[in-house]
């Protein structure tokens, strides 16, 4: 049950700055994801919190205590790695007991806690097995139990699902989230998988080139990305050039059709061109009264994905993706056919960076 604060943390290796001016305050029991492409500095941030790297400047506090210069062993953290981090010479039980043993917890209490943890991760009978006898998913669960057993203040997860099969990945992330909520432990989760981050986080930090581009809830990040990078990195995006007509009222035109942006381009002047973006689900196949404008489009490709059908089409001179729900009685359009697509300005995201 702890708060974690990073105050203007910088990190550079030699001449290259890996993390720049990183600020973050986490409340008790929060689940926060660091999301970004590889090399964006997310793992470095995590390793600085853990104490494996020390910041070039700035401060890290856990529960108000400055831990910037403490060794990892003194910070009371729990960490889970990508894979293969279980000690191969110890049984599952001994792995989970390790942190307690190092802290000098007595044997009886240790055994009780190990049994509790194994029950928590749903592997109560595997205490005597060795790591090489477990599947990848089981190993990562044990790694979670091992990290949690000493009751750390902060739990740090370094892409713990990336080495697993797609199916196990999905079920395990739900489980991690459940256990985290049950124990109410403040958690940082590093991932490059936006869907993973979206589905289990309270808040997400999208990182790009060592900088936190945007911090917000999954809903905010997806629907109101503040930079072009965030908008592109999180989900699929259709980008259009529009002409500004009246910035104060948010009036613009797209292929000579009027649109009203609720996100007003205040810095722009009439006659400027502006980039706006629309999610695939904001484009509606067919004419619709609920939408502001309808444009013609030519279907290029049809991807049947189950409950959703994703169409690729040319509209207003740019390739776009749009989603439509599958309806058993209505077959999707065929490639090459002309369709109409409806859209509204208030669903558009203005891209300014």
């Amino acid at each position, binding site marked *: 049950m702890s708060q974690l604060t990073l105050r203007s943390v910088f990190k550079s290796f030699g001449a290259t700055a890996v993390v720049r001016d990183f600020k973050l305050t986490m409340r008790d029991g929060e689940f926060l994801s660091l999301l970004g492409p590889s090399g964006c500095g997310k793992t470095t941030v995590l390793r600085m919190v*853990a104490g494996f790297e020390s910041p070039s400047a700035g401060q890290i506090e856990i529960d108000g205590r400055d831990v910037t210069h403490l060794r*990892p*062993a003194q910070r009371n953290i729990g960490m889970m790695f990508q894979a*293969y981090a279980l000690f191969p*010479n110890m049984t599952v039980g001994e792995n989970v007991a390790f942190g307690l043993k190092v802290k000098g917890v007595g044997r009886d209490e240790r055994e009780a806690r190990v049994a509790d943890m194994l029950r928590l991760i749903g592997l109560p009978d595997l205490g005597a097995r060795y790591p090489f006898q477990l599947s990848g998913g089981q190993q990562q669960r044990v790694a979670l139990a091992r990290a949690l057993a*000493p009751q750390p203040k902060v739990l740090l997860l370094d892409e713990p699902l990336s080495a697993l099969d797609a199916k196990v990945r999905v079920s395990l992330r739900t489980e991690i989230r459940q256990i985290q909520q049950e124990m109410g432990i403040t958690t940082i989760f590093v991932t490059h998988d936006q869907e993973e981050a979206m589905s289990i986080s309270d808040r997400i930090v999208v990182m790009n080139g060592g900088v936190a581009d945007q911090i917000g809830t999954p809903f905010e990040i997806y629907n109101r990305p503040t930079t072009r990078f965030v908008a592109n990195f999180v989900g699929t995006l259709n980008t259009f050039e529009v002409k500004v007509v009246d910035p104060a009222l948010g009036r613009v035109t797209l292929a000579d059709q009027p649109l009203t942006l609720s996100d007003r381009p205040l810095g722009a002047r009439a006659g400027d061109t502006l980039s706006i973006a629309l999610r695939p689900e904001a484009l509606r196949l067919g004419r619709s009264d609920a939408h502001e404008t309808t444009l013609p489009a030519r279907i290029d490709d049809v991807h049947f994905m189950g409950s959703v059908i994703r169409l690729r089409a040319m509209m207003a001179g740019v390739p776009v993706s749009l989603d439509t729900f599958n309806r058993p009685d209505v077959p999707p359009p065929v490639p090459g056919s002309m369709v109409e697509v409806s859209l509204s300005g208030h669903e558009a995201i203005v891209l300014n960076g």
Partner: protein
Amino acid sequence: MTDRADAMHPPARRLSVPRKLWDLLGLVPFLGFAFLFLVAPVFYLVVGAFQTPDGTFTFDNMLGLAAPNIANSFWLSIRLSFASAALGTVAGLLLAQALILGGMPAWLRQAITTFSGVASNFAGVPLAFAFIATLGRLGLVTLILRDVFGWNIYASGFSLFSFWGLTLTYLYFQLPLMLLVITPAVEGLRSEWREAAESMGASGWQYWRMIGAPVLAPSVMGCFLLLFANAFGTLATVIALTGSNFSVVPIVLFQQIRGNVLYNPNLGYALAVGMILVMLVSNLLYMLLRRRAERWQK
């Protein structure tokens, strides 16, 4: 019955028996060679070790290995192999650790690894010459120690042609061999293990005691046995250094082949079998330990 069986097998299946035979024919050259020049000679010795000169079965030859002169040479061989293997294991492990975990520049690591590839093949006669030029009576190091540091090592009991001199010479191929075979295991120590241990509050010493050392132990033991076998079979280096005076088992066998110094050919066979047994046991243990270590490396 036979009709039905025939009908059930498609023709391709019936062709498969001769085809299997054809396949086997492809192995005849290799198996023939191995039989003629490897298996049969060894088999001949093994059979001979359990026979009297006139061909009746006996254990006397094997029991004859306990005779003082032969038992002594086995004991000498075992001590020499043990000493050079132990020294090589410790030194090679330290060097591997220093190179891999000590933050040495990559070029140095590469250079020493390449050198080790050469040096571990540098057994035999030239090695002996090199050590004579270094630590022999007129060797460079001997002279420097005598003239510069005033320490005459030969006067204080050292001789290159003695037990410790041989050990030191063997080390020249044992150390590089150890470095080469233990490097994968040391590299296999994942940084995650250390970090996980640290994050749970363990000190560096606790990490080594509870994880690093136990994980490395089977590999280190295995490599020690490999080095032991390596030293046990060494013959040319000893001959070039000491002539035939230093009666380790291979030398005794060499002499026996040259001139039947044991006055009993069948005792010679037993000596060979004894050598094979030592090599076999240490190699088998090495493989067992390596398998165990590899299981953990996954």
